[in-house]
């Protein structure tokens, strides 16, 4: 990379600063399938003090591997084959492990995607926050603790004085992610690597975490590498953006320039994904409805008087943050969780509440697609077994007829014969989800319940899946109940929207009605929290909310 001249005077990147990190011709190989494969194929990266760089790309692009390499670290099963990593005059590619360990945690910090999995559940938050600073003798323990409280305050954590005394399981996911940022900031590092820190959070929580991360990094003039696959998020955080694909750099430019004038066709395609939108159609013929449902897991009541109607051949999107009862509603519909009271009506007749009382025919009519395609398919079954089983089970298809129908289904989901004998581990994320769709289609259902089916996927793959679902709906008149927390997805696929909050339906109606003012308070919060592709969006939003 050569330093791009500043074409946009508004850009906050200051190119006069001293260079902190210089990576040249980085090549990393990964070991899989008894062979070494190149993962990073000669990428350059330059970062100056106080700058935030966004590293984006789809999964498998090598962005996490490159981010970790910036610390001089490669995961087990990976090796750095060539290149130099100059961090403040030290070549980390050649440095000994002992030298690198002295830098890690003090001058270079890492914030992982899943905070919950990265904390030790047996220690209090404050002890873990100050550990690096105290153990490395940066300052005395008491000072570190006082400083940690200030960091908690700066990160807008509730009760900054006492929150450190809690254990990791006693705070929420968003709070934990902020504590982890405090932990990284505590020794005042020169460089922080954020590896998808908000991917696992709800939109409403994500906004708060993003804002506090951005503030604290700016306050201490820390350089940061921000890894994500969400463009809208990176637009809020980064001074400039580097796009990776297949382990190679596609394009690099200051954020504003990148958003307004992307040059490469691949970058352009990434940018256009979010523009998918389906024209809504009102549906009259109600195929399934749940009426006045109350449901509970043991003593905890999760649903309160929920009623939802699904018109035939339409998509009803259920939105809300996690814990709002979206998935529980789906479980009631499928019979996995018999409700305490209320009824489920299908084609005018009442369905038995419990799964075991429903007939094979009734089961066949309602199919489900899960969020994590990984866990929704048996890892020991081939694609042929997975798609073929509903065919055998519901229609008694065998031999040639079964095989033909499988090929037909594979064709519908835009895959071919060569996938027949693959195992789920041999498929990519999008392909796995397609196989799950084919499994649902195999039953020839009236209704498919889609539980966050695209949220684990990259945007470009998401679009492909959404378009597939829309095409299938048109062709076979399938009704979707689409559970999601992503408003862009809702716009793309739904006819009607149900907004849920704390186990109750806040609003229900046609897409155009719900998405236009006046909004109830919660709908407004939810809609305004969805990141937009405007680098000023977060700043404007926070100003607006403060008013």
């Amino acid at each position, binding site marked *: 990379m050569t330093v791009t001249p500043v074409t946009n005077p508004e850009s906050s990147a200051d190119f006069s600063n001293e260079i902190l990190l210089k990576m040249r011709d980085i090549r990393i190989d990964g070991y899989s399938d008894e062979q070494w494969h190149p993962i990073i194929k000669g990428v350059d990266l330059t970062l100056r003090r106080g700058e935030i760089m966004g590293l984006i790309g789809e999964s498998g692009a090598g962005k996490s591997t490159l981010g970790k390499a910036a610390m001089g670290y490669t995961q087990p099963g990976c090796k750095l084959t060539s290149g130099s990593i100059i961090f403040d005059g030290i070549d980390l590619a050649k440095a000994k492990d002992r030298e690198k360990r002295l830098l890690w945690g003090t001058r270079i910090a890492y914030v992982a995607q899943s905070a919950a999995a990265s904390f030790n559940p047996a220690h209090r938050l404050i002890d873990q926050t100050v550990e690096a600073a105290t153990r490395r003798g940066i300052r005395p323990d008491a000072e570190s603790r006082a400083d940690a409280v200030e960091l908690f305050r700066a990160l807008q954590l509730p009760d900054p004085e006492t929150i450190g005394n809690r254990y990791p399981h006693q705070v929420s996911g968003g709070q934990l992610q902020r504590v982890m940022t405090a932990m990284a900031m505590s020794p005042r590092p020169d460089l922080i690597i954020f590896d998808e820190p908000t991917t696992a959070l709800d939109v409403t929580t994500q906004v708060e975490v993003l804002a506090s991360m951005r503030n604290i990094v700016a306050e201490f003039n820390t350089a940061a590498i921000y890894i994500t696959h969400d463009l809208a998020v990176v637009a809020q955080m980064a001074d400039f953006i580097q796009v990776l694909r297949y382990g190679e750099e596609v394009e690099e430019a200051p954020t504003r320039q990148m958003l307004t004038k992307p040059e490469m066709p691949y970058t352009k395609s990434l940018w256009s994904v979010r523009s998918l939108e389906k024209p809504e159609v009102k549906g009259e013929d109600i195929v399934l409805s749940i009426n006045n449902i109350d449901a509970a897991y043991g003593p905890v009541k999760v649903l309160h008087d929920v009623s939802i109607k699904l018109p035939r051949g339409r998509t009803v999107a259920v939105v809300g943050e996690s814990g709002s009862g979206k998935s529980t509603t789906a479980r009631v519909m499928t019979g996995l969780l018999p409700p305490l009271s209320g009824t489920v009506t299908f084609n005018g007749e009442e369905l038995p509440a419990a799964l075991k009382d429903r007939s094979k025919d009734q089961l066949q009519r309602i199919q489900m697609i899960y969020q994590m395609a990984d866990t929704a398919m048996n890892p020991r079954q081939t694609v042929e077994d997975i798609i073929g*089983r509903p065919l055998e089970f519901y229609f008694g298809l065998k031999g040639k007829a079964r095989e033909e129908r499988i090929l037909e289904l594979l064709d519908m989901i835009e895959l071919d014969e060569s996938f027949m004998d693959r195992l789920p581990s041999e498929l990519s994320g999008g392909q796995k989800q397609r196989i799950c769709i084919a499994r649902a289609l195999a039953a020839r259902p009236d209704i498919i319940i889609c539980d966050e089916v695209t949220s684990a996927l990259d945007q470009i793959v998401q*679009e*492909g899946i959404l378009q597939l679902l829309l095409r299938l709906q048109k062709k076979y008149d399938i009704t979707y109940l689409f559970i999601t927390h992503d408003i862009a997805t809702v716009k793309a696929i739904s006819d009607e929207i149900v907004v849920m909050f704390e186990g109750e339906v806040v609003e229900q109606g046609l897409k155009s009605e719900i998405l236009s003012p006046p909004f109830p308070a919660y709908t407004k919060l939810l809609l305004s929290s969805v990141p937009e592709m405007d680098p000023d969006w977060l700043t404007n939003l926070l100003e607006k909310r403060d008013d």
Partner: protein
Amino acid sequence: MSEQPDTYAASAEVGAVRTRRSGFERFGLLMKSAPPSAWFGMIVVAFYILVAIFADVIAPYGEAEIHSAAFAPWGDEFFFGTDQIGRDVLTRLIYGARNTMGIALATTFLSFLIGGGLGLVAAINRRWLDQALSRFVDVLMAIPSLIFALMLLSIFGSTITSLIIIIAVLDSTRVFRLTRAVAVNVAVMDYVEAAKLRGEGLGWIMRREILPNIMPPLVAEFGLRFCFVFLTIAALSFLGVGIQPPTADWGSMVRANASLIQFAKYDMTAAITPLLPAAAIALLTVAVNFIVDWFLQKTSGLRE
């Protein structure tokens, strides 16, 4: 990762592994990666199996054939000498491999059938059935198994059938616990839920959805359990309630010739004679454990 299209196509997405190998090729790769300890284990086990199968051919004499000289020394006629009533020790060792290993194998299979089956059922039906089975297993496990086995064997008699059934039932408690513990983790996966939603019965869910996914720990446990069963049978035989004469068996051979050890200062080989069957047991146990260790390391996905 050779294709890199500019536009998006579902079938060209990069998956984790692109090459698919036949079962034979994968077996070949597996064998190539086996460490020396695993090779040692496999060779020893293969040797034992061959001896057990071809016992009739290899053994110089009949299993219960009694010769005139009791406690004969090692020599050309009787390679490892004879025992207290004049039976060839080498012959008995060879037949012992067949009897002891055969019974141990049958017992282990039976205990996995009982324990594994019930463990799966308990993992799927988490309500009263799980409670009832688990508590019953707790009660069985609370009684020291060797003493319990001794008691049951004295009630039902020391026939080979009752030996197999009693040890299998007592041992199945451990298998039950393991199966239930690993199956519970699999039973909450979405694909099991998907199978339930499809309307599949208990049998399908057990055999096709859960069992294939818990095989690695079960196979490893099978190797270990086999060793323990083996030792239990040897111990019971040593105590005289296991495999009954004239059937050759390593445990009872140790007991029968144990007194020879005190002649060590006069004749080393005589003292070694009772240790031969013990060494046979020890070698097999070590060999099986080497294989199990390798298998565990392989399936736990640990590198380096």
